[in-house]
């Protein structure tokens, strides 16, 4: 197993390098640069050119790429053009918010999605199943930015129970902190809850039809033991794959939700940087996101081995 993990980590480097090169090239191809944003819309072309020179954006493509790669070899993600600080510092300041949001959303997804899927499978083809699956379908179909706005209007404006946006640090109180993240986590997680409920239902249904389940029932085991001990564990292999994907999606989905709720996390940093063409931050953010995807995939593969003794990587 240890050898396998080392191989996978080493194999990640070319992937990350390719991500870096592609993102660098794409950003160079997209029209517009930070000079236009910095100078503002009232600036003339000559004024923007002067700002461009001062920001060092007049350097040739290969010079800029070489400088970025050289910095990368020394662990330096560069300096943000618009934030006035190192990219790694800017990311380090924001990543805890994004990870907390993704984790809270992830826990909500697991706590609601898996039980709903199990209940629907156990009550397959009844009104309960249909009701759960209808709600799951709605969850999968709703765009999360729209859901976010609706939740703000309902819980903040109409009921006045939750803040309309903004982040409160845990140092200012656990309850205000929790409230500042609850609506964003729900908005982010609803789609994934629906997805997880549907996957859990279908895999559970398949497992429940297996001979060993019939045997377990025939032995007279109570339903909760049949489901909890025999069915659920075996249904978890495909579910774990989906869970890995879901966590990755929750991390990337934060780009939209953090913007809607004005949360100063990595997602909003990336969105702001893209719209202002802050190249170093975009590249650093994408590199980190790609690294997280690679890491989550590796973790999922390792989890397989723990859940299914038949899986061996050596």
């Amino acid at each position, binding site marked *: 197993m240890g050898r396998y993990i080392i191989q996978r980590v080493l194999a990640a480097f070319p992937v990350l390098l390719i991500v870096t090169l592609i993102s660098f090239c794409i950003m160079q191809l997209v029209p517009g640069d930070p000079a236009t944003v910095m100078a503002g819309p009232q*600036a003339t072309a000559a004024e923007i050119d002067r700002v461009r020179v001062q920001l060092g954006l007049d350097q040739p493509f290969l010079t800029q790429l070489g400088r970025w790669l050289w910095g990368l070899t020394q662990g330096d993600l560069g300096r943000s053009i618009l934030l006035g600080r190192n990219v790694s510092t800017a990311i380090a300041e924001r990543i805890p918010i994004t990870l907390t949001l993704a984790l809270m959303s992830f826990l909500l997804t697991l706590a609601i999605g898996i039980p709903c899927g199990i209940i629907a499978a156990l009550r397959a083809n009844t009104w309960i199943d249909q009701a759960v699956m209808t709600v799951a379908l709605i969850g999968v179909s709703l765009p999360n930015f729209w859901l976010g706005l609706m939740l703000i209007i309902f819980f903040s404006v109409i009921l006045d129970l939750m803040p309309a946006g903004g982040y409160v640090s845990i140092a200012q109180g656990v309850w205000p902190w929790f409230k500042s993240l609850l609506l964003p986590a729900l908005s982010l997680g609803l789609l994934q809850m629906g997805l997880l409920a549907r996957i859990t239902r279908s895999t559970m249904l398949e497992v429940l039809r297996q001979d060993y389940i019939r045997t377990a029932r025939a032995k007279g085991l109570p339903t909760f033991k049949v489901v909890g001990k025999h069915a659920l564990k075996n249904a978890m292999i495909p579910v774990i794959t989906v869970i890995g994907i879901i966590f990755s999606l929750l991390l990337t989905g934060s780009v939209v939700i953090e913007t809607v709720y004005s949360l100063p996390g990595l997602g909003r940093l990336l969105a702001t940087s893209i719209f202002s063409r802050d190249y170093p931050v975009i590249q650093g953010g994408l590199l980190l996101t790609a690294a997280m995807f690679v890491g989550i995939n590796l973790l999922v593969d390792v989890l397989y081995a723990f859940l299914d003794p038949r899986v061996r990587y050596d």
Partner: protein
Amino acid sequence: MTVRRLSACFRTATAIAALVAVGLAAEPAFAQKKGGTAVIAQEAGPPTLDMHFSTNIAVRNVVMQVYEQLVTRDETNAPMMELAESFAESTDGLTYTFKIRKGIKFHNGKAMTSADVLASYQRFARVGVQRGFFEQIAEMSAPDADTFVIKMRKRMPVAIEEFSQFGNPVVIYPAEQKDREGGKADPIGTGPFQYVEWVADSHVKLKRFDGYVPDTRHKGTNGFGGHKVAWLDELDFRYVKEPVARVAGMETGQFHLTEDIPTKAAKRLKDNKALTLYPVQRWWIHGAWVNQTNPPFNNRDIRRAMQIGLDMDEIMDVATDGAFDLQPGFQYPGNPYYTDAGKQYYNVKDVKKAQELLKTAGYKGEEIVLMTLPAYQSMYDAAVVMVEQMKAIGFKVRLDPVDLPTGAARQRKPDSGWHLSFTGLGTGPAVGPFGATVLLVGPNTLSQVQDPTFDKLYEEMQTGATLDARKATFAKLQERIYEDVKMLKMGDLTKVMAARSNVKGFIPFRIPRLWNVWLE
């Protein structure tokens, strides 16, 4: 040096400013209360806090609470003195001598002298975005601690208008910042609020500067100057891009003030007693640059067919939900330079005549591309309506929505496939006739074809000896914009600011001014 007093324009402006200031100071003094934090939700975050290095309004909104200018603009956008105690112009019009107010301190505790003013002007001449005018300066000096002198290369009667412009304000930094590169100056000023914290994509925090010395020549808020008092302990500017979140935050009391409420929401909120809405008429001019190099728009008759066929009432109504004014000027009524020159081409909405002109001009059905910015809903909506109107005239039209940096980059490239590039002229027209027309001057004109006649008129306006002479030249410039179809003006948009009802003393302006404002 023989000295004569201020120009007629400047004197008149000062008189108006005094009247306005008295009027605006009407709030009873006993009602004012020190303390509290005002949370201000704004649409965009500032890309920098260095005022010399940006014309971005998000920057001005925040840092004009922190910095001050030698000369600035009053409530009517006319020049007024701020850190200058007095000002004189030599009879040959080449030398401007400013006396600096005494006792002013920077936020770092250092006393401000003419050396700081000189260093700030020198820095602006080096890194300022709109430093083009500074090329007309022959020499600057600070002969003593209270005096700052500017010598021009040639007579420039509009010099004070340029030094007081607030598109890219020439704010005064401590002299130690002189050699800082653009975007790298420390946020230290002389204003009523001082810098605390900036998290670029999140918020900026400011606090009251207890060492602030108000300008006792005035009695209240007046443009960017006047008698300023910081009643609030702290200002917390938060970047809230999503309009629904801004409105919700205002309704729940999470925010005290916002610079922009969508018109539809404003209609719903007008009876909400917890909020006060402040419609600011003529916030910006909705328009579109016309690419005169891209066929068939290299044919003026075809451009004219579009110009006279469009219905600006309908376009502006849909774009702004009824929050607009129609007038042909690139200055606003009441402004010293206002003119309706070119009105015969504005909002003609004669589709039949346009169709005939299109036929005789030899239009062969070439596709017209309308490049617009969905980030600004009103611009996008205006473009959608215009597509339909142009189709009715007989044009083949395609909408090309792009993000802001893409639009800004492409509109400066004539061969990047657009015919109309939608824009909003906000600060430019408010600053004056130069700001309103500068983007059409020279080889980098946004109409893409340099017009020597237009350039000559612009130069003539800069050197016009009297206000009347400059006004006459501006009328010719405006006429030329219409006559040559360099830009389509649609109308003037009304922006709605909002404050919670417990926010007192707030007077809407082009930036939210948080001095002389308190919480009840």
